[in-house]
């Protein structure tokens, strides 16, 4: 149908509600909508095809498993921070919770000579407890989320160094009291970080990847399919209205920070199990990488909001890009630059395009 500017005037007085939209505007509108929805996934697919053609050995199960392994721990942390983003909060302490879990598990096994089970349990409890404190600071003490979790971050970075006077933990180390640490990392614990399951090829998929996928599925189901996830999104969108609908907003916010803390401690446990020692210097990049993954996730499927699927894709996107560039001999020091570039593009996708979709926002 051709557009006619003349008839629009008299038509307005007739009881025909929809204004005639020129076909070309309509088409460009759907194009923009398609770009918002599938743009990022197409970009990911394009990258995979490009690297597969451009390099030797990128396309293959080993390389894929490597990518997944490289993003598994960041991805788990990112899924945790996604939960706090959903309720309109933020958790800066996840990186330090992860490194605290790393040190705590090493301390439990090497110094206190506890079993793997006790070490894992202690880390999870620690993560939940830190999340609880974060949540209480934010909800009860009314500390802004960024400040509360920033404070917690510093606190934990300091705390994890005190028992060993700032040194890494490994078997045979001398303790502050002068005695030698006799404990060892239990094989069951190391299994968590190092075992690989057979899938297509022998010893292909590492345990952390499986845990990442399980955690991802769990968070996705929780946020998308349960009423608790629905209410958490409602809190993030209009906290006051959600409270007036009879929701216990404080309880959900605290829960979100506890989930975040537990996820971060799972990440820390897996890191410890992979390293096999309580390395004080590990995990520096965890916070920024996982926050980036969660934010990139906003752009996936045009969600324009934190979401579990997007976060997982966001983590994978960074992994694919870095693996591909490494195989094309890009120097290691360009990595952060590349991550930053991806993040900025993703944020542009999210905010510029999706506000246009909503008619300029409000």
């Amino acid at each position, binding site marked *: 149908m051709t557009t006619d500017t003349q008839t629009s005037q008299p038509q307005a007085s007739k009881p025909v509600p929809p204004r005639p939209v020129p076909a070309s505007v309509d088409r460009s509108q759907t194009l923009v909508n398609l770009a918002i929805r599938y743009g990022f996934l197409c970009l990911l697919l394009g990258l995979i095809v490009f690297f597969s053609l451009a390099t030797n050995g990128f396309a293959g199960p080993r390389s894929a498993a490597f990518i997944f392994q490289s993003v598994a721990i960041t991805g788990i942390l990112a899924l945790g921070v996604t939960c706090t983003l959903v309720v309109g909060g933020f958790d800066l302490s996840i990186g330090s919770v992860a490194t605290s879990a790393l040190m705590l598990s090493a301390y439990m096994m090497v110094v206190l000579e506890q079993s793997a089970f006790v070490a894992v349990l202690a880390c999870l409890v620690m993560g939940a407890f830190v999340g609880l404190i974060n949540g209480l600071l934010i909800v009860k003490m009314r500390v802004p989320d960024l400040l509360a979790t920033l404070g917690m971050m510093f606190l934990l970075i300091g705390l994890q160094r005190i028992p060993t006077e700032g040194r890494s933990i490994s078997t045979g180390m001398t303790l502050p009291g002068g005695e030698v640490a006799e404990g060892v990392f239990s094989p069951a614990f190391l299994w968590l970080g190092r075992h690989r399951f057979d899938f297509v090829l022998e010893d292909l998929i590492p345990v952390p990847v499986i845990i990442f996928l399980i955690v991802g599925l769990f968070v996705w189901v929780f946020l998308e*399919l*349960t*009423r*608790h996830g*629905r*209410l958490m*999104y*409602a809190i993030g*969108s*209009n906290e*006051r*209205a*959600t*409270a*007036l*609908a*009879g*929701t*216990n907003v404080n309880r959900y916010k605290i829960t979100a920070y506890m989930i975040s803390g537990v996820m971060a401690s799972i990440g820390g446990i897996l890191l410890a199990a992979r390293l096999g020692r309580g390395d004080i210097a590990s995990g520096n990049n965890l916070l920024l990488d996982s926050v980036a993954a969660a934010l990139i996730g906003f752009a996936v499927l045009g969600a324009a*909001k934190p979401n579990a699927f997007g976060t997982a894709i966001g983590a994978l996107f960074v992994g694919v890009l870095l693996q591909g560039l490494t195989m094309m001999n890009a120097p290691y020091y360009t990595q952060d630059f590349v991550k930053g570039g991806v993040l900025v593009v993703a944020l542009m996708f999210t905010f510029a395009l999706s506000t246009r979709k*909503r008619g300029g926002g*409000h």
Partner: protein
Amino acid sequence: MQHAACRVVGIEKAFGPNRVLRGIDLTIPAGQITVLMGANGAGKSTLVKILCGVHARDGGNIELFGEPFSPASPSQAIEAGVVTVHQSINDGVIPDLDVASNLMLDRLNEPGAGFFINRGKLRGEARKIASAMGLDIDVRTQVSDLGVAERQLIAIARAMAKDPKVLILDEPTSSLSATEAERLFKLLDHLRETGVAILYISHRMSDIRRIADRIISMRDGQISGTFETEPLDYEGAVTAMLGHAMTAVDINVAAKGEPVIELDGIKLSEGGAPITLTIHRNEVVAITGLLGSGKTKIASILFGMEKPLAGQMRLAGKPYTPASPEAAIAAGVFMSPKDRASNGVIPTFDITQNLTLPFTARHAPFSFLSRASEKRTTQSMIEQLGVVCQSPADDIGTLSGGNQQKVMVGRWMAEASQLLVLDEPFQGVDIRARRDIGRSIRNTASERATIVFAAELDEALEIADRILVLYEHSLVGEHRNENVDLGAMLAQVSGQAAQYPNTETHAS
């Protein structure tokens, strides 16, 4: 002294499809206090924002002392001598600075103010302004350490420091005590004598009686009345503001069922008289009154967000003391709050998700949401209320204000309740949506007791079996919605009734 300092002709302003101002004509004479009255959403604040350069007008003209006046920014308006004290106090003060810096803030912006601050000089000048205002505060005090009333006076003092020719005050006494308000009025008397044109926006009848030279009433974006002959017709002004054109809706007052909610000696504030009332099943009660008369306070108490100063409540005969909205809902008391944009709508959700928000548990066996069950409920509420939409999965933002409001009300009608409280359910709603919502509320009234809070009288007359009038936290009138004596009701709304003790205030 009768010449107009500021003349406004045919001002138009729309936000999207919403025409907020539809041709406002107004003069503000020098040396007089012009009071502007209007219900919520009448467009007063928009008019003020156009005068002080926050919003640009869509049409019409403003003249200031005979010259065309189109401020592009608040600072231009101030330069021209139009100074505004906004309703929200925190727009007028900077809490983290001391009193002196606050009073002198605008001087710091002046050209030639210099790079460094001379503290001694700053405080000296600030003290002068403060003493002129009769403000007895150490100018070194942090504003954040002061009370609301003192902050308000500082905001007003700041405005005075700018040498206003036209001074606009938007509800300046809302947080002031009677003595503090009197201090302000003395100051205004003084300014009036010096020839300043003052536009004073308020609902408080006591203020208006004290200072008004002229009253202008606004309603639905238009001027609905101008009163300037002595003695001023206060009741007429309230009538013009609220409007009471008889509506086409006929109410058949229904037979009351058993008592559902009983309020016994509930006190809203120290000054308010204890409120005792009973609301029955199959009864729709409208509670009306001006802004600040205590409507929202009663709603908050019923919904467990606030505790009354004194008194008890009983729900279906049992003591009712909700500690939170959650507890109120569990007891079967639902409330649709006013201001849907901030208190109701979840902007990122679709119609279904918005509608089922309070009762997700009913649609989620083992916590897993059943989209089909949600959709069934939504579909039936869409039909019952006549929500105009493509499908239950439309974004809430695509709906018009009236249809959004239907979803907000539908949210609470989707489940059976003992008592349904609707706070300003017709706010920003067109007449058709208003009728749809009203019909739906009345049709289902037999299932529960219903309380509707409405400032506009026609809204109350359109929906209620019984209308109660609140004035300054006290119940001052009760009317069965049959041949209501509108004059008496308006007198009660505007607080005139207190002057006529013989008025039949408790007829029913």
